């Protein structure tokens, strides 16, 4: 059978580390990169007698995610204990949610190859992170519990994903969404977004699902696609050679570019879930629900549509401008300051070609941009009005970025105002023509491209400030006459 005779069926379980200052159930800091075991307290360590108290900010973050993905929010949800023994799990159980999770249903919108696609979500629930075990050569392993207790959202998708490419796109969409909502930086390399993939294949046209395997240890966007592609290919290979897929967990080995079966010592885990008696029912009242609804920003897909449909931007431009919320907010503010939707296209150009270049070179975030949106809008207005030429405007822009000064001030200070006084330009044009009789004759004899030479001379004499279109017109008139 050819590869296209098989249909991949993929579901993703993504853990989102919520960007709170303190941990899910106690006040230790969640700071990344601290000295091992310096961010612990009795509750994190699971010391005898310690108790959990839940972080409001973690709840608010999770609610934003649930609302943004149009989930059903459970007004009364419960924490449950999930039991297993592992050194990075201090209490011998993880506080998680089981049959009463915070959010259910909902979907993530993505566009794959121009087509719009919806991946349904099964659920989103709250839980705490475990610590980190450090594997090393020799007979022992080391443990750092700094990460233990950090709040997580687990986002579980339905097996709606049909290709490795789509899976990667899903991860990108989720990454973008959590950053838009301000609930996580979503940095996969820092472990703020962790992806486990459930992968199976079936003959195209068959409705029954094949046996699935679970793929773990995918820690960058690049590997999401690669690892899943690899697993799909492996499964097809096995099935086509008459073998059967074993339901198992496989670890992705990025260096080797393959996955390995994880043979763990115990049989299938029995997590012995039960409602955590230390944590009464989690209630989301009307006040909190409303407050979170109000807090929802306009989401990337909606902004994209607005930029394309209402402002006529090209798809690629709209995609770039909606990539980060801060950039989109900047763009929206600039267009608003410009006062007219017609400003959208020029502002889009300025941002993409000039602003992003500067920011990227300096590795600066949009929030740290020295130019305010209103100032950029003002610059574009000035170009519209002919007060500066496009070329001079770029110079002004550079100065704005360096100093944070307003464009009007810079133009005034440097005397960069575009010369559009026809009389003045005529005078300069005449002198240039007189000074270059040879080229003038050449032009009049038919070498019309020489106009460029004369334009260049006038621009030079005016320090580049002459209005180029006007210069062109004047020269043509004088040379003709």
């Amino acid at each position, binding site marked *: 059978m050819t590869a296209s005779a098989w249909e991949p069926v993929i579901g993703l379980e993504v853990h989102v580390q919520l960007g709170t200052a303190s941990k899910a159930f106690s006040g230790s800091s969640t700071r990344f990169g601290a000295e091992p075991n310096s961010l612990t307290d009795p509750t994190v360590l699971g010391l005898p007698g310690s108790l959990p*108290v839940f972080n409001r900010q973690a709840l608010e973050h999770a609610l934003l995610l649930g609302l943004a993905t149009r989930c059903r929010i459970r007004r009364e949800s419960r924490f449950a204990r999930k039991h297993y023994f592992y050194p990075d799990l201090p209490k011998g159980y993880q506080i998680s949610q089981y049959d009463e999770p915070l959010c259910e249903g909902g979907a993530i919108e993505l566009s794959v190859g121009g087509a719009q696609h919806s991946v349904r979500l099964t659920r989103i629930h709250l839980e705490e992170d475990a610590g980190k075990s450090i594997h090393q050569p020799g007979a*022992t*392993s080391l*443990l750092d*519990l700094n990460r233990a207790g950090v709040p997580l959202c687990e986002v579980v998708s339905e097996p709606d994903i049909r290709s490795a490419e789509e899976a990667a796109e899903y991860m990108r969409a989720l990454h973008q969404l959590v950053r838009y909502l301000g609930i996580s930086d979503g940095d996969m390399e820092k472990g703020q977004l962790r992806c486990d993939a459930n992968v199976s294949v079936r003959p195209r046209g068959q409705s029954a699902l094949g046996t699935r395997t679970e793929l773990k240890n995918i820690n960058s966007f690049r590997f999401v696609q690669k690892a899943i592609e690899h697993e799909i290919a*492996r499964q097809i290979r096995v099935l086509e050679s008459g073998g059967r897929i074993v339901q198992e967990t496989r670890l992705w*080995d990025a260096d080797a570019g393959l996955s390995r079966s994880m043979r763990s010592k115990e049989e299938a885990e029995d997590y012995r879930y039960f409602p955590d008696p230390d*944590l009464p*029912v989690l*209630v989301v009242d009307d006040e909190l629900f409303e407050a979170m609804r109000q807090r929802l920003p306009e989401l990337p897909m909606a902004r994209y549509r607005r930029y394309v449909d209402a402002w006529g931007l090209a798809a690629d431009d709209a995609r770039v401008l909606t990539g980060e919320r801060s950039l989109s907010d900047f763009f929206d503010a600039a267009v608003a300051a410009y006062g007219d939707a017609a400003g959208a296209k020029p502002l889009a150009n300025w941002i993409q070609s000039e602003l992003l270049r500067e920011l990227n070179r300096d590795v600066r975030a949009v929030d740290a941009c020295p130019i305010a949106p209103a100032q950029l809008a003002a610059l574009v207005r000035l170009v519209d009005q002919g007060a500066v030429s496009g070329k001079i405007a770029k110079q002004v822009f550079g100065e704005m970025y360096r100093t944070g000064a307003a464009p009007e001030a810079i133009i005034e200070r440097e005397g960069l105002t575009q010369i559009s006084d026809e009389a003045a330009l005529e005078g300069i044009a005449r002198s240039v023509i007189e000074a270059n009789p040879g080229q003038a004759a050449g032009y009049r004899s038919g070498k019309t491209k020489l106009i460029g030479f004369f334009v260049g001379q006038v621009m030079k004499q005016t320090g580049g400030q002459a209005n180029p279109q006007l210069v062109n017109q004047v020269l043509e008139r004088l040379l003709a006459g």
Partner: protein
Amino acid sequence: MAALLNREEVEEIALLARLALTDDEIERLRGDLAAILAYMDTLQDVDTTGVAPMTHAVPMHLRLRADEVDASLPAEQVVTSAPAYVDTYFEVPKIIDTATGE
């Protein structure tokens, strides 16, 4: 009901609970658990149709705390209370997630 527990089941539970038991202990526990569980079976006769499980003695909602950072315990103090440590890491026998090749 599982009023009769065989040795395998007892060993299974002991593994789930990470308890090393002697043969004597396993035998004794098998008897104890069987007797206790048989007694628990009396609960099956209670009609609990439509009764919601009681999860907390006094009904209450979860009180939340503000996202404020409190002081942590000093790393050195934390690990020196442990049976084994290296620098400021806890140390345990090697964690093996054996992975075999494809």
